[in-house]
């Protein structure tokens, strides 16, 4: 039986979850930009534009302590982070390009090292995804195999309807549990008309073909053309739902401090700097090439997935307007 929820009840759901001491995260206006942030009430939810950063910070925080240390009586005490203190989280209002990212990242965070920090947060989170009616000409989720109404990654999926309500589908058990816990907010009955999705300007990409081209063109003039203008900041990597590189630093004083894990970007000039001083990716060409290779070849080689959800944020945010969708389309159209 199809389910639906009104906008009012959606906001009520948030209030109830907040009262139940869950960490409720959703798009919220913060000084004129929309970001995924903890919500204190349903009224704060803003669904009229895509958040500036992705939702990956739910499991992959911008910055988190991974251990604390303190020097007492000449001895150093090391204290691990109590994972049970990770909050139970409900993410609400994630479009498929954001909801789909844990499905891609799960593999790398449980590969050669079981990253507890990521995994524990994942276990404790529920995602309420929402179909996207707010795309623009930077979006290309359909080109990389996703869609504005793709349910992958969501526990509960909402589709905006003409009239202001949302059709709801429980995609996983967590979703079913959530609905059952708040059944009074949902109504059964025929769903209304779905709001049409935006036609994306980037055509469908043949990802295997692109991967094959990348395999054979490690040295190609294409890389210089793009990387000449790349300025080597981390904007594209940081706001990307799929990028997951991090750095670990010890900070504090000799007496006390913490070891911190925080976002890093392969675009930074010292990203591959070795202790010897040798830097394999010493020029921007090599660094930008690595970005594309990692996303569309290496990750697929290792985990069978493309490291991109087509959200288009990197295109919008790039200081020099580098357009990954355009680059992929160019590669896609190459005959050799």
């Amino acid at each position, binding site marked *: 039986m199809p389910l639906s929820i009104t906008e009012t009840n959606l906001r009520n759901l948030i209030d109830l979850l907040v009262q*139940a*001491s*869950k*960490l409720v*995260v959703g798009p919220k206006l913060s000084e004129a930009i929309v970001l995924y*942030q*903890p919500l204190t009430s349903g009224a704060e939810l803003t669904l009229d534009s895509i958040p500036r950063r992705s939702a990956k*910070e*739910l499991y*992959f*925080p*911008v*910055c*988190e*302590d991974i251990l604390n240390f303190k020097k007492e009586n000449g001895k150093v005490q090391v204290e691990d*982070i*109590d994972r*049970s*203190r*990770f*909050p*139970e989280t409900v993410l609400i209002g994630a479009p498929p390009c954001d909801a789909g990212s844990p499905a891609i990242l799960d593999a790398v965070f449980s590969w050669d090292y079981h990253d507890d920090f990521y995994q524990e947060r994942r276990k404790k989170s529920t995602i309420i995804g929402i179909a996207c009616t707010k795309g623009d000409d930077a979006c290309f989720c359909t080109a990389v195999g996703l869609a504005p109404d793709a349910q992958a990654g969501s526990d509960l999926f909402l589709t905006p309807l003409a009239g202001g309500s949302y059709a709801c589908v429980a995609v996983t058990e967590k979703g079913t549990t959530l609905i059952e816990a708040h059944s009074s907010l949902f109504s059964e009955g025929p769903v209304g008309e779905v709001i049409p999705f935006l036609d994306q300007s980037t055509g469908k990409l043949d990802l295997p073909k692109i991967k094959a081209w990348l395999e054979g063109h490690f040295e190609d003039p294409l890389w210089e053309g793009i990387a000449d203008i790349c300025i080597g900041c981390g904007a594209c990597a940081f706001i990307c739902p799929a990028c997951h590189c991090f750095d670990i630093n010890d900070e504090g*004083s000799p007496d006390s401090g913490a070891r911190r894990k925080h976002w890093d970007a392969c675009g930074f000039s010292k990203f591959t700097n070795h202790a010897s001083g040798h830097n394999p990716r010493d020029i921007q060409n090599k660094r930008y090439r690595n970005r594309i290779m990692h996303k569309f070849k290496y990750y697929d080689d290792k985990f069978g997935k493309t490291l991109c959800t087509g959200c288009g944020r990197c295109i919008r945010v790039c200081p020099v307007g580098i357009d990954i969708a355009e680059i992929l389309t160019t590669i896609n159209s190459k005959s050799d």
Partner: protein
Amino acid sequence: MHAEKTSHDFEPKIIAFVCTWCTYAGADLAGTSRMQYPSNVRVLKFPCTGRIDPVFILRAFQKGADGVLVSGCHPGDCHYMAGNFHARRRFAAFRALLGFVGVDLQRLQFSWVSAAEGGKWVEVVTELTERVRAMGPMTEFKSLETEEQWSGALTTPELREAFDSID
């Protein structure tokens, strides 16, 4: 003769960045002359005020200083000729920046103290110490240190307990 040392609730931490040739010598003179002044000041010796990078002042505040004093030779007397002239411009700019960002400039004092001015050193340090004492501890940077990005923050035990008690 030692003055009565009154006890206070709050003992401010004052960091003083001073130049070797003038202010440090002046402070030394104050010491050898047995002049009494608050012991809250921690002195850091630099060859010249021109060597004092504004980032040191920032770092002092970040690491818990309640007040910062920067002191050097009078203009024209710099051991390195022009170090304090450059410093003067640099500090004027940095002061404006800190003020704009919301730091209370009453906590930051600049002075020229020569090697002969033991008395002035005492005056400057005492004034700054008492002024900062009246203002209370500097909380801005210290409380900032405790802030996390929401995504890295952990729930407090109290919150967890409250959550667990809900069925």
